[in-house]
């Protein structure tokens, strides 16, 4: 649960951009899970937790009366980097190459890269970020991600694709290979 709660905290922090609020939301989600889903089989709990977390985040937005922000974040923005002229393969160097290149001096820049990636993920449109994180960080399949997000599987694939292309493009511009 430790890794789950940390990822949950990060995911909510990306959305609400407030660590205290994110902590409250994660705690509230844990309580809701324990309180309302006592009888559910253990296998269903991770997915339920993600769903509760998403709902709790939405509740937080509602309580904060930032409806304009919700409308803005949840509308389908076309990324400015989308369909750019780049090759995903260029951004993807092999792991061996990466580790071979890494030296002590690179460790410092590696920390900066982590921060940069964190920042770029947080800048993704909300739906794209949610789909990307649920699909590839929480490792839910497309159907489960769609279930948590309350959208179709096709939308999930589109959001994920757009998120990946946006990130690849911006990382390429910044000269970062993974």
């Amino acid at each position, binding site marked *: *649960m*430790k*890794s789950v*709660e*940390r*990822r949950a*905290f*990060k995911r909510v922090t990306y959305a609400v951009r407030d*660590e205290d609020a994110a*902590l409250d939301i*994660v*705690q509230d989600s*844990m*309580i809701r*899970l*324990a*309180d309302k*889903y*006592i*009888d*559910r*089989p*253990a296998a269903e*709990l*991770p997915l339920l937790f993600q769903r509760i977390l998403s709902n709790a985040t939405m509740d937080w937005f509602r309580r904060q009366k930032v409806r304009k922000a919700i409308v803005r974040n949840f509308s389908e923005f076309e990324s400015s980097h989308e369909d750019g002229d780049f090759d*995903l*393969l260029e*951004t*993807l160097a092999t792991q061996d190459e990466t580790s071979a290149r890494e030296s002590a001096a690179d460790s410092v820049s590696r920390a900066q*890269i*982590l*921060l940069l*990636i*964190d920042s770029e*993920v947080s800048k993704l449109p909300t739906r794209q970020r949610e789909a*990307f*994180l649920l*699909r*590839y*960080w929480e490792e839910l399949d497309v159907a489960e991600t769609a279930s948590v997000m309350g959208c179709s599987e096709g939308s999930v694939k589109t959001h*994920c*694709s757009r*998120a*990946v292309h946006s*990130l*690849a493009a911006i990382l390429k511009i910044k000269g970062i290979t*993974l």
Partner: protein
Amino acid sequence: MNRTGLSSSPPVAEAEALQARFAYRVTSHLTHQAAALPQDITERLRIAREQALQKAHAARTVRAPARGAVGLGPVLAWLGSGRSEESSLWLKLASFLPLIVLVSGLIAIQDWHGNNEISAAAEVDASLLADDLPPSAYSDAGFVEFLKSPRE
């Protein structure tokens, strides 16, 4: 004549695999970032988890007191409490053990006492039946009445 563009783009499955590969690289970096959360954040998360567990215990007590530990088991296990609900069930069962012993003892004593009374009465009856009846007994009205009365 767009065939050049189409042929240069990878097949869908390959593109998805490439996309997934890139995505997992990014999320592995995010995992590193999440692992390095500040101590105060991780502590607050831990406290939040423990508070959730306490509320879960309270909710279980209120909602299903007779159901015992079975219902909350999966949630507690997933939340990582590490507490054994099974042991509390055994404790509850063990608390009934003295009562069971007491009741069994009382039943045994009553049974033993009853057997004693029966054997004592049987001895008296046997000695009476085995003894000679004095002739004067036939002149006793009470004895005559006893002989006339139906046997149980």
